[in-house]
């Protein structure tokens, strides 16, 4: 037997693409060539494969070996092809039979001793295996639990090349998959709202943001607790559904961020303000997901909003609207899911010392406020000032526990889900102007309250919509079917007034 075929997968954005690894062995001077648009790490695999095969007690054929990775147009990246390459060589040299490999996808990195090392994106690969109707997937044991999240396929986790071969031959039972969905996420670790003192008045603002999926703006001097509050927002969001959890796990696995278990906590990402546009939304020659995508179904926190580079914020604008990042490369378009709740924070001035001690000149302030008024504020519905809590407030009662607040939020989300059924939307923050008109169910009095505010405060049309959206969420939290004037008034006291910037500058 001198020809063999092994199924494998490569990561392409956030998806796995099927790759066929073909090995051909024929008489000639000993050589080992890999063709098929393989990148450097795949070509280096030759040395690892040779050593791993020999060190695992198999024979490395002293002939001319050609390995082809098909389809040839797809660029293959990463060390995940080590194991399929080794198995293909073993099969082509008769040390494995084609039947033993049939219907089995293989992925894994090899060490020189033949040990199988973990690779990224196991969950995406497992999903690809299922999509292509393959029956089994053979991968590093450290990633078996992750892959086993995908139903209807057999997952074989191996730790060594020898073990892989023996398992395929049926000489040994596949090792049991280590505790699938191990409850590794200790709930104690999650920052809880009850840790917060002195900001009780801000709890409803967080509650509204969490309940309606509204993006939130925190404005205030440094050290007052903006970051602390933002970190607690994920704990207020309803628990992830299993579908959402799998989606997040897949993304984190591709980015190499997690330990092989199911991600159960909503992600919280807080990129530094020096991040580039492609770091934030994803990009690169072979596009990788960015911070925004890693915050999918969770919270993306941008501290010091005015310090972020303009292109980075501009790039984030569309994803916030569409719920996905679209990256266009020469011949293809990739979409990274990015449904996040944005929390932006900013100091009142560049020096951050506040009114009395501030050193900033008029020009500094003007620049700061101009940068703030940039592209992202359009997408923010709720805005609050975070002040320095007084000593009495710090001694006072702590905020309610996240669990208590979350119950109300879950109930409000259920109301939204019922109302938004059939629109493809999940929360009030996504309501467009037209849907808002049809679905907000505002009473006549509520509308006239809104117009009174409009006349008084010179709201823009956008400001109008924001207040109505937030009022809708407040009504949902209160368990009301209709939006009443008091909801409008409450929402108005949480609005983001983009027009009040210009006067201060």
């Amino acid at each position, binding site marked *: 037997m001198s020809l063999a075929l092994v199924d494998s997968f490569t990561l392409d954005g956030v998806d796995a693409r099927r790759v066929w690894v073909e090995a051909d062995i024929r008489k000639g001077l000993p050589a080992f060539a890999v063709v098929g648009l393989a990148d450097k790490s795949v070509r280096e695999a030759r040395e690892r494969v040779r050593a791993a095969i020999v060190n695992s007690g198999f024979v490395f054929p002293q002939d001319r070996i050609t390995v082809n990775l098909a389809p040839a147009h797809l660029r293959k990246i990463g060390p995940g092809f080590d194991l399929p390459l080794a198995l293909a060589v073993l099969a082509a040299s008769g040390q494995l039979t084609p039947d033993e490999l049939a219907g089995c996808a293989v992925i894994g990195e090899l060490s020189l001793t033949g040990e199988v090392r973990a690779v990224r994106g196991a969950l995406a690969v497992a999903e690809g295996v299922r999509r292509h109707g393959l029956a089994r997937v053979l991968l590093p044991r450290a990633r078996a639990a992750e892959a086993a999240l995908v139903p209807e396929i057999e997952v074989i986790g191996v730790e060594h090349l020898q073990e892989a071969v023996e398992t395929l031959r049926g000489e040994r039972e596949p090792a049991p998959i280590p505790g699938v969905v191990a409850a590794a996420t200790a709930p104690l670790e999650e920052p809880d709202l009850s840790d917060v003192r002195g900001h*009780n008045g801000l*709890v409803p*603002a967080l509650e509204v943001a969490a309940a309606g999926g509204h993006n939130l703006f925190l404005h205030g001097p440094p050290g007052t607790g903006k970051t602390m509050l933002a970190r607690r927002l994920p704990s207020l969001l309803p628990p992830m559904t299993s579908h959402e959890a799998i989606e997040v796990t897949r993304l984190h696995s591709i980015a190499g961020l997690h330990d092989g278990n199911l991600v159960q906590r909503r992600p919280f990402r807080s990129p530094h303000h020096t991040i580039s546009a492609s770091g934030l939304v994803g990009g690169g020659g072979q596009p990788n997901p960015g911070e925004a995508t890693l915050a999918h179904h969770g919270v993306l926190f941008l501290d010091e909003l005015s310090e972020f580079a303009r292109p980075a914020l501009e790039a984030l604008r569309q994803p916030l609207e569409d719920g996905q990042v679209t990256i266009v490369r020469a011949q293809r378009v990739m979409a990274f899911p990015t449904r996040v709740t944005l929390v932006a924070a900013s100091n009142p001035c560049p020096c951050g010392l506040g009114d009395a001690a501030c050193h900033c000149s008029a020009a500094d302030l003007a620049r700061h406020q101009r940068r703030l008024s940039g592209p992202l504020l359009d997408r923010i519905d709720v805005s609050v000032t975070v002040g320095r809590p007084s000593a009495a407030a710090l001694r006072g009662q702590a905020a309610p526990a996240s669990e208590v607040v979350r119950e109300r939020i879950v109930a409000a989300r259920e109301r939204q889900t019922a109302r938004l059924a059939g629109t493809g939307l999940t929360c009030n923050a996504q309501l467009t102007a037209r849907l808002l008109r049809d679905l907000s169910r505002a009473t006549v009095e509520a509308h006239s309250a809104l117009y009174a505010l409009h006349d008084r405060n010179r709201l823009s049309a956008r400001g109008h919509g924001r207040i109505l959206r937030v009022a809708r969420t407040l009504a949902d939290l209160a368990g009301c079917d209709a939006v009443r004037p008091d909801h409008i008034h*409450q929402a*108005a006291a*949480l609005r983001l007034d983009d027009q009040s*910037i210009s006067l201060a500058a």
Partner: protein
Amino acid sequence: MTDVACDDCLRRTDLVAALAAWLDVEWRRRSAPAGVLSLPDETLIALEGTGRAARRYAAFSPERARRRIATAGLSAVCRCRATYPGRLRDLADPPAVLHIAGHPAALEQTDSVAIVGARRGTAYGLEVARALGGGLAAAGVPVVSGMAMGVDSAAHIGALEHTLGARSHPRETEAGTATTEAPPAASATHAGHIPAPARAAPPVAVLAGGADVPYPASRRRLHARIVEYGCVVSELPPGFTAYRWCFVARNRIIAGLAALTVVVEAAERSGSLTTADFAEQIGRAVGAVPGPVTSRFSGGTNALLAAGAGVVRDTRDVLDQLLGPSAPSPDELPEAVPIEPRLRRLLDAIERGHGSLAELTSDPDATHQVLQDLTDLELRGLARREFGGRYVRALEGRR
């Protein structure tokens, strides 16, 4: 137009513009002769000394200067004419020519008030400037200022807000559309006609550079609005870019045009204090808005008060100082409306500077009521929501 600026005054203006760079150096070295702008042309030319100014002075063409003024859409009036604002003649060095963008008639009213202050205004200063600007415009008193960032702009915006009437608002962010509706009526054919409600007083801005050049550039929409409803004036020719000394020279025109100069907010060594100095030199009244003694942004105004400037708390104080205690009260002075104790307590907290949500309540369950009350206070004009979400006391209720 040609009959309102004489050749000599135009030549003088051209000379000052030509000497501007030299003057800037001298001014920075503090070696400029005292009262340099009041020196006669010959002395100025001799002082400069390179002969370049002398050649330019000899070759000056009044016709070209008039053409440039007309092309820039400005009108001009020189100190030899009767239409020149008489109040400026009190200055030791009245500008030779006033270049006017907008309606020259705006300069005719004698009882105008200058509202000036720091470019870096605090929320308090901006709020007071805006309220005073609006209140004075409502009382029919023209507001003169320098269109600088901060307090100056806030005063202009306050005045325009009133002029434009019910809430169509001259914010920088949205004024663009409104200015295109009515073309800026800068030509002399419109002179004398002010398309504003009869009672509202026209705003007047004095610039350090050319009257046709919005400075700072970020205030170009405000500039367009002032040109439309009042006028923008400058002593320097069109297109001129200001040097540092020009801002001080501009302040003397502001002080000269106004019967009363009110400094809203100024630190100990603020440039806006020079306006008060000029006003004092020519015997005009000076008022100042008191500020916290702990705030360095109010150091200059508090010092003015200590030196005897009139205390300005609201529009009525300004009108009292301007017209005597018997001044007619402005139209919009509302009655003090009694408010519920709950709102009163909230307003008290806001007045003490505790304007953020967490400071206003410590009970998460009561917050919804507080949110509602805040909007209530805002709708009554007692509080104003700042960018970000802090509430401050609004002065609209007591202009």
